[in-house]
């Protein structure tokens, strides 16, 4: 080893602006590592062979075998190519981001990046666009075929531009999901599976949920814009038929190509970009916090409550305007597909409204649980917080700090959730479709009871006992009784009441029971009467259980405060009690 160079050899550092992606060292690192000629050649072959096959087989068939005009034939490969591009960027790219991020942490080299004087945002963007750089190149490799098909197929820019804008914003959103998963999950394989699983859910389960009144969720996907553009991407003959079929099933109403948000109207792609943009911002904030401080919660308490309130506004804003036209009800679409009811004969049933209200409550409850997990301090964080508080002579922990309790924030979220749930239920039940039906005055309080009970019970258990107990509780009290109840109900009619009582234990069933209790719909064999009885009984039990859990939480907090041995007071600050920052 020779003499080291003089420190003056290094110039003063100016942090790299985050938007200069091409100059981002992390992005460049992945360009080098993931675009080596050998590997890239193999991956390009694996991309171009199927892409070429798809393009040529579909185009050749359309041009020479089908009775289509040339422009129609030329646009035929567009949709299959889009599907392939989705697999490349959404599935492979997301998996690569999650796995790559976990891999960096696993190898231990992530710490090196923490030590560089780049801004947290520059680091987030470096990984976001760097990790899937090969997938972007693979996507670009398929683009010539797409461009040819768009050009020769005479597809207007007003169709393909919004579609590809949303396609790219969806890719960024899913990659951010992968990045967050990779940051949180320690195991590379699990991070990969989790992120792929989320994308899979987005395109399978979420669209179903969005059909049951939670319209907002579909804007996390490419689906609404794709459906909007679909007719223009297909050969003209097929799209004419498609338009005609849709117009028929919608009783002469124009094909819905706009999003209603309270009194506002947006095009599908603008609203999708807006929705995805909000979520992208949230994910960036999560990652920014983690880069700024490795032990930080993914979201601060205020941001979590704000995000929850914002989600409620989006859910309501999308759902409420669709009630009166009847577009919110799943039976309309199901009836159309099954060709059992359509047009003027169609009318929603109150049962489906009750189901939708229950689903809204369940999704709200799940959102509260997820955000509670994010903002609740672990025992370790609390102990450290209390010791720091004592050392610095503070009277209490800063209320919004990660170490502070999340109890009151869960209360706020539960109340906001109950308000949103009530507005949704009232809008649905008191719509013109169910003239004469009134949502009871105490309905809001009932919803608040459900959300507060389950939310606070979960929070208290999580904070006092750690994550294992709520997980086991969720399985054995939330899922198993509902499943056993379902099996019992399926067995014989005499078991129906027992099934209802058993399923009523589950916090996941409570929103549906609450909806049925407030808006009684006739269910045969006394099930309709049993549900309110079971609901109120289990809610009463739940009040005591939650009160016990909260008492236990208070005791645990006191024990933790006592176990945090008081260290000597920092001499500079003296021993007087001062307010925390």
């Amino acid at each position, binding site marked *: *080893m*020779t*003499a*080291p*160079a*003089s*420190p*003056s*050899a*290094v*110039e*003063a*550092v*100016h*942090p*790299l602006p985050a938007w200069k992606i091409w100059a981002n*060292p*992390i992005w*460049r*690192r992945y360009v*080098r*590592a*993931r675009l080596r000629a050998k590997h890239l050649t193999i991956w390009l072959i694996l991309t171009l062979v199927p892409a070429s096959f798809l393009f040529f087989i579909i185009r050749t068939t359309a041009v020479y075998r089908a009775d289509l005009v040339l422009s129609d034939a030329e646009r035929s490969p567009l949709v299959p190519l889009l599907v392939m591009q989705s697999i490349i960027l959404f599935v492979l790219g997301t998996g690569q981001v999650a796995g790559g991020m976990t891999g*960096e942490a696993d*190898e*231990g*080299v992530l*710490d*090196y*990046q*923490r*030590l*560089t*004087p*780049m*801004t947290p945002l520059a680091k987030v963007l470096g990984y976001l666009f760097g990790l899937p750089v090969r997938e972007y190149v693979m996507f670009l490799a398929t683009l010539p075929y797409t461009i040819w098909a768009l050009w020769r197929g005479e597809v207007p820019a007003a169709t393909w531009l919004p579609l590809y804008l949303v396609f790219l914003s969806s890719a960024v959103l899913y990659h951010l999901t992968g990045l967050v998963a990779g940051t949180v999950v320690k195991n590379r394989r699990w991070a990969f599976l989790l992120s792929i699983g989320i994308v899979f859910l987005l395109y399978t389960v979420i669209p179903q949920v969005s059909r049951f009144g939670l319209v907002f969720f579909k804007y996390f996907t490419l689906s609404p814009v794709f459906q909007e553009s679909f007719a223009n991407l297909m050969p003209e003959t097929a799209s004419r038929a498609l338009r005609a079929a849709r117009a028929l099933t919608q009783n002469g109403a124009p094909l819905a190509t706009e999003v209603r948000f309270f009194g506002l109207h947006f095009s599908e792609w603008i609203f999708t970009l807006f929705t995805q943009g909000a979520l992208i911002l949230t994910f960036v904030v999560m990652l920014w916090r983690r880069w700024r*401080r*490795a*032990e930080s919660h993914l979201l601060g308490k205020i941001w979590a409550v704000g995000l929850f309130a914002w989600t409620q506004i989006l859910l309501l804003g999308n759902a409420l305007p669709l009630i009166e036209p009847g577009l919110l009800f799943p039976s309309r679409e199901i009836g159309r597909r099954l060709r059992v009811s359509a047009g003027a004969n169609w009318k929603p049933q109150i049962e489906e409204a009750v189901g939708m209200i229950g689903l809204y409550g369940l999704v709200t409850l799940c959102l509260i649980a997820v955000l509670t997990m994010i903002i609740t301090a672990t*025992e*370790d964080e609390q*102990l*450290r917080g209390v*010791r*720091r508080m004592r*050392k*610095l002579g503070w009277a209490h922990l800063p209320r919004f700090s990660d170490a502070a309790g999340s109890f009151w924030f869960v209360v706020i979220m539960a109340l906001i959730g109950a308000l949103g749930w009530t507005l949704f239920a009232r809008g649905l039940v008191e719509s013109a479709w169910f003239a004469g039906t009134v949502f009871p005055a105490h309905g809001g309080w009932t919803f608040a009871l459900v959300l507060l009970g389950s939310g606070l019970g979960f929070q208290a258990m999580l904070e006092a006992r750690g994550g294992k107990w709520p997980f086991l509780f969720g399985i054995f009290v939330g899922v198993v009784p509902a499943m056993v109840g379902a099996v019992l109900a399926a067995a014989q009619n005499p078991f129906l009441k027992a099934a209802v009582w058993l399923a009523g234990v589950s916090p996941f069933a409570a929103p549906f029971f609450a909806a049925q209790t407030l808006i009684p719909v006739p269910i045969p064999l006394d099930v309709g009467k049993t549900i309110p009885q079971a609901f109120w009984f289990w809610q009463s039990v739940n009040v005591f259980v939650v009160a016990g859990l909260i008492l236990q939480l208070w005791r645990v907090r006191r024990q933790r405060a006592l*176990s945090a041995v008081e*260290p*000597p007071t*920092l001499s500079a600050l003296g021993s007087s009690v001062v307010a925390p920052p």
Partner: protein
Amino acid sequence: MPAAAIEIRDLRVDYGNFVAVSDVTLSVPAGEIFGLVGPNGAGKTSTFRVLATLMEPTYGEVRLGGIDIFEDPEGARRLMGYMPDLAPVPSDLKVSEFLDLFADAHGIGSAAARRARVDACLEQVALTDRKEAFCKTLSRGQTQRLVLAKTLLHAPKVMILDEPASGMDPLSRRNLRLALRRLADAGTTVFVSSHILSELAEMCSSICVMNRGHLLAAGTVDEVRRLLGRAERTLTVAVLERADAAADWLRIQPAVSELKLASERLSFTFSGTHEEQAALLTGLIGQSLRVTVFEEQKSTFEEILIEVSENNSPA
């Protein structure tokens, strides 16, 4: 006295109820090679990770070059180079690419300037011939040297090296010592931990000793040895003749015990102060004994540390 490059005050790190670092206060002067010694679980790595801004302590203040690392972590990172224990390297990058990444991230100018800096640092750690090799193909010692080169890239004012010599062969270790010495001569402060105690004693101007989260002693190697050494020490005296008379005289001295005589050499345990020790020598000479050796047998660093490790109580 030079200004402190690293100031740690009341630093505490907890993992649940386990106290990894307990109210450590320490000051490392600029331009020194300062060693942190302690057995496994002493709290060395936790202390270093806090200093490196990789970990938030329970409480405490840390300043690097006058910068509060919790207030301005990015400012502190510009000043500091950190080399972790068992330093990892990415498997998908070449040596030159790995270094270029961090030269770039530290804002070292143009591609040409980065290349020059990378070459200089590789030369410093004698890895120039492995420049185009993949990091994953390097041996453990070479990997350590590569990460040391990465740490040197932005010419940090303060270097925090956690067990930098682990995995290095003897020649590389010697070269590392020389390189660190030269860095210190150039004004860089080096805070280094090692469990190879003799190595630290050789390269450090000052050291501190930690055990079970407590800072037991800090100062020059001799000061720490004295602070942690036992009050009783073994003295050896050799005389040209009349060893029996010397033994008789020593036996009646109040602070002397366990005296042994072997071929004109006397060894005994002495529990007096240093003044009394000086008076003892004067007394021997006063007895007209011709003293050829009067020596305190110092405990080795290893002995002290083993003793410290077995004894939990802070000094």
